[in-house]
């Protein structure tokens, strides 16, 4: 949605008026080029969404088979404590993890852009590197490091004769997950901010310097407003990502089976409903409710973020 507004400005100017014949031909050729994408998109995006909506209106009972139940599944989902627990958990996760991650990313981007770092291009590449690491590998590395057996936590305990709190215990596992996700995506967000900072016209900084603005003042009054669009986009993508939290808890679950339950996040809940419990109709309903909630929050953030501009 944001992308749409931003990109509309980048759109080419409307072409000159053309004859009806030319327009008809152009339409055919245009669809010819776009057709393959649209066809596959319909198959793997639109058809499943339609099918999920259809599924959510039915219920599969042991006795009596599949029957139409209207909106009953939705009523169940909205009063399902297991769903709400998971939703609150990812809500808490996103309130803490997203600001921390974006804050670090922004600071590093500003530092690199300031031209005051030694080895700035090394920083840029090295901080981005974890983005190339699969979520599975990232979760395994951190999961092992968290471990008391041969992990760093165990090493520190042995070396100093202390007992650190177990990062995989139920009370700390959410923070431990937040750390993994932050590690994976801090560089990606840094790069988005840095790319936005790079296209800010340097003449703005000169003007500010002539007006006697210090470095922090330039950051606050020139740089941050100039990259507002990138900040909003990164926030929205991070929110969507948090609501979809699945890979990291799913893998860490094997290392911390007591701390990460099958309904730890809404997506884990949907997955276990569907593939362990065979409750496809109800799983589809929970997934749709989650999608709607995500879209509403992302849209609200976009409206608020853009209005201040």
């Amino acid at each position: 949605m944001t992308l749409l507004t931003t990109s509309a400005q980048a759109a080419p100017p409307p072409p000159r008026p053309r004859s009806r014949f030319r327009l008809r031909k152009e339409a055919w050729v245009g669809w010819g080029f776009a057709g393959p994408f649209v066809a596959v998109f319909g198959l793997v995006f639109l058809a499943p969404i339609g099918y999920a909506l259809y599924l959510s209106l039915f219920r599969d009972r042991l006795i009596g088979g599949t029957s139409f139940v209207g909106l009953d599944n939705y009523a169940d989902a909205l009063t399902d404590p297991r769903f709400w627990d998971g939703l609150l958990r990812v809500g808490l996760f996103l309130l803490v993890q997203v600001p921390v991650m974006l804050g670090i990313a922004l600071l590093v981007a500003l530092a690199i852009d300031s031209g005051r770092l030694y080895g700035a291009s090394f920083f840029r590449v090295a901080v981005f590197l974890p983005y190339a690491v699969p979520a599975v590998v990232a979760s395994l590395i951190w999961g092992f490091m968290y471990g008391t057996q041969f992990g760093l936590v165990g090493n520190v305990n042995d070396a100093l004769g202390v007992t650190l709190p177990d990062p995989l215990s139920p009370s700390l596992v959410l923070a431990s997950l937040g750390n993994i996700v932050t590690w994976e995506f801090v560089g990606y967000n840094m790069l988005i901010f840095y790319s936005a900072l790079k296209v800010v016209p340097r003449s703005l900084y000169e003007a500010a310097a002539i007006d006697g603005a210090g470095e922090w003042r330039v950051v606050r009054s020139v740089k941050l407003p100039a990259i507002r669009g990138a900040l909003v986009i990164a926030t929205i993508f991070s929110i969507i990502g948090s609501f979809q939290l699945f890979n990291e808890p799913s893998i860490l679950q094997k290392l911390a089976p007591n701390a990460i339950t099958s309904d730890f996040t809404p997506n884990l809940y949907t997955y276990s409903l569907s593939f362990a419990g065979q409750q496809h109709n109800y799983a589809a309903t929970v997934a749709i409710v989650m999608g709607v909630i995500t879209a509403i929050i992302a849209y609200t953030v976009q409206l608020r973020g853009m209005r201040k501009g």
Partner: protein
Amino acid sequence: MTTTLTSATAGGPADAPRPTAARAASRTTVPTRRGRLPRTPLNPRPSIPLTLVAGLVLLYTLLPLAWLLINATKDQKGLLDSFGLWFADDVNLWDNITRTLTYDDGVFVRWLLNTLLYVAAGAGGATVLAVLGGYALAKYQFPGRKAIFAVVIGAVAVPGTALAVPTFLMFSGMGLTNTPWAVIIPSLISPFGLYLMWVFAAEAVPTELLEAARIDGSGELRTFFTIALPLLMPGTVTVLLFSMVATWNNYFLPLIMIKDPDWYPLTLGLNAWNAQAQTAGGEAVFDLIVTGSLLTIVPIVAVFLLLQRFWQSGLAAGSVKE
């Protein structure tokens, strides 16, 4: 692979402004690497405290990778007995790699080949579709153009799992689950790639050039291949790179679609080894998981470092166009 990795990393600091050169430049008007500007109050000399603070973040991002590299050199006993951030008495990297590749009749190699298949077909196909679609959206006026764009961008907000269950049921009905198709077909769509190519094509391909080709009697396909495609190359490589990472790292899609270990990609395979090691009675193959993890990330990290130029400029062109 390891050699390319090291030399590419070494390339990073090499193009960074060298402190002495920078200091010399501060007195002259020799343009610095950073921009066309001479060194001014706006373009100050590097600061040691700031570098140290940013260095903490660097330490944070590199620490787990260092841990992985160090622990891939240990055998099972070394993993348990030695300090995590230093080497054990003996270095077993080569032995570990051999055992990872041959364990269970070389199943890791099978997973690697599967991953390569998914990446080649999925990411390659996704790039082709995105380039064609983006070019069409940018350079042709046709009915439904705006609608395509709005729907595709709106779909980005739909959670993956919302699609997973119905996609699984649909593919299962078509007999596609447990086959490579179930992983490849959904990988073919990259909304981000389409968006990037749209913005890129709008700027990189002048409409006048296409008009001139048409007046010269060139057909639309020929115009695309001989004129537009070469101009679209940098954007195309960026989309290919990001699709490759997405496919190489994919976990959720194969998790629901593939039950047969013979069709696992590397990510599912490592997950299966981890599950086995955590199960009572299962063979504890922690050394293989660690080495396998290292082998899984080396190719994709190498590709990333070698093609830096592309993803850095690609992101700049696409995601934050203001």
